[in-house]
């Protein structure tokens, strides 16, 4: 209990190893890292891509901090840290921030809030019809500020405005479980983003870097009725462990998909769940996962 409070010094952070790990994985090709405003080239023969801008006297400048990528004549800068860039068909997990007329505003970690229109959700009961004024009034009974939803990106407007839809039984309101937020660049695009892991955990890996961890029973229940039943201890342990494992992986920049998470979960069973919060153990788990991936891949 409280007798062992872990106090440590910043200087005891081991930084060298993680950096060595990364350089190993950055590949042998030297990358040019630029900060905003750095001149990339003054040669006019290049095309300006994402993350760059032109200035008359200074040539092509970087608009973000990241690595320069060149494809033929096109120069782009890939940012090191970025917000979620939505694409049509992406599975996302988001949090309702506002109930408006005919739509919900959803925080998906992008530059703008996404819109979930009333006409792009399935109503409780599953009946398909035009939404009436009564439905509009009942909107806040279905989803309210703070609720989590899984959804699919339906459309991305020219100004970057995103609309979502939940017109599928696998999407909708999320119940009991735990949300982890990681960088969206760490989520690997897969065939499916809904996984039932062998440890009884149901995982929704949103492409926006929001990962929803819940148990299998919750995944099968309807997305409308709130299930406030107690999650049994064993399942809860699996959920907590999965959560900590995902955080460990993301801290050491390992791509997140079902295989990596499962590998790391197996490796992590040597430690208690709370131990997984410690940086040295997170590193150990991440390192072993990386090794295992290389062996198998």
């Amino acid at each position: 209990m409280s007798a062992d409070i872990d106090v440590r010094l910043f200087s005891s952070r081991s930084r060298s190893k993680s950096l060595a790990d990364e350089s190993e994985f950055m590949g042998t090709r030297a990358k040019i890292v630029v900060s905003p405003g750095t001149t990339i080239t003054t040669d006019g023969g290049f095309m300006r891509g994402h993350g760059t801008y032109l200035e008359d006297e200074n040539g092509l400048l970087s608009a973000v901090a990241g690595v320069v990528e060149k494809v033929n004549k096109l120069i782009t800068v890939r940012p090191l840290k970025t917000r979620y860039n939505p694409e049509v068909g992406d599975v996302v997990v988001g949090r309702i921030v506002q109930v408006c007329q005919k739509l919900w505003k959803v925080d998906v970690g992008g530059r703008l809030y996404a819109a979930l229109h009333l006409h792009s959700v399935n109503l409780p009961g599953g009946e398909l019809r035009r939404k009436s004024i009564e439905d509009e009034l009942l909107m806040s009974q279905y989803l309210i500020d703070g609720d989590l939803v899984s959804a699919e990106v339906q459309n991305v407007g020219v100004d970057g405005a995103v609309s979502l839809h939940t017109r599928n039984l696998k999407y909708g309101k999320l119940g009991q479980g735990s949300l982890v937020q990681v960088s969206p660049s760490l989520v690997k695009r897969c065939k499916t983003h809904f996984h039932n892991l062998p440890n009884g955990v149901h995982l929704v890996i949103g492409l926006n870097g929001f990962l929803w961890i819940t148990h299998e029973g919750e995944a099968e229940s309807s997305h409308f009725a709130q299930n406030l039943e107690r999650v049994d201890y064993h399942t809860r342990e699996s959920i907590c462990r999965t959560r900590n494992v995902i955080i460990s992986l993301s801290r050491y920049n390992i791509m997140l998909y079902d295989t990596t998470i499962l590998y790391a979960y197996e490796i992590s069973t040597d430690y208690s769940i709370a131990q997984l919060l410690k940086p040295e153990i997170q590193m150990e788990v991440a390192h072993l996962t990386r090794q295992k991936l290389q062996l198998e891949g």
Partner: protein
Amino acid sequence: MANLAVSDSEKTFIIHGVEDNLRCDGRGCLDYRHIELELGAAPNCSGSSHVRIANTDVLVGIKAEIAAPDHAAPDRGRIEFFVDLTANADPEFEGTGGDELGQQIAGALAEAYVSKRFLDLSSLCIVKNQQVWVLFVDILILELGGSLYDAVSIAVKAALYDLRIPKLTVSIGEDGKPEIEVSDDPHTQEPLAIANVPCFVTLSKIGSQFVVDVSQEEAECSTVNMCCAIAPNGRMATTMKTGVGSLHPDSLIEALQLAQEIGVALHKALHKQFVKAQELSGRTNGFLL
């Protein structure tokens, strides 16, 4: 306080977890996350520190200045707290948005430090009635991740531990007025006696259980928070209740005893690292790690 939106079912999950003594991150109810600290984070200050508990990041700098004492306490120095919540921690704090919470924290600290049992300010007196040292404690909150009071108080204590005040000699001049002379050697410095300085231990009531070191999500589920300033010897400097809920007298006493126990353990763990950190003081890795 910057609030995080958490849905009802997430709250249910957290509350049930606390009842099972298995929180979302696998900790038990009375487990702390690991605390990281360093001394001498800001070399321009008389004393400084940097503390991080998971995502909560606090930077403290203390500036010692000579000024006139309070009329009420002519033979004692002063200690003043200023808390600045950066917009980096939460966009809500932009402009004057963080002032209210900042004043609350500063007030709580001032209250915890008021008694000379915990911090004897009489050693900061230079010439009675005329000149005393005033410690300006500037607290910068860089990131929020729960248990803010605890982190702030640990950082303040660490900065006080790092505090070095130049040695002064007072002599009576020819005109009978006292003259203050600063020692030529900058290394003759006096540390402040901080052995009894208290730290906050916040106990949050989630469901029917008391929980220590809550994350932001858990803070949303707590009904009432007991913030107790505990000295290393277990004495309680002040207590404060925040939140909407109420406490039964029995559970209040239970909470206070629990806080006392945890506070003593916390001080013990902190002290060990303070000694180590002092050797490394000034060799900072930069606070934006």
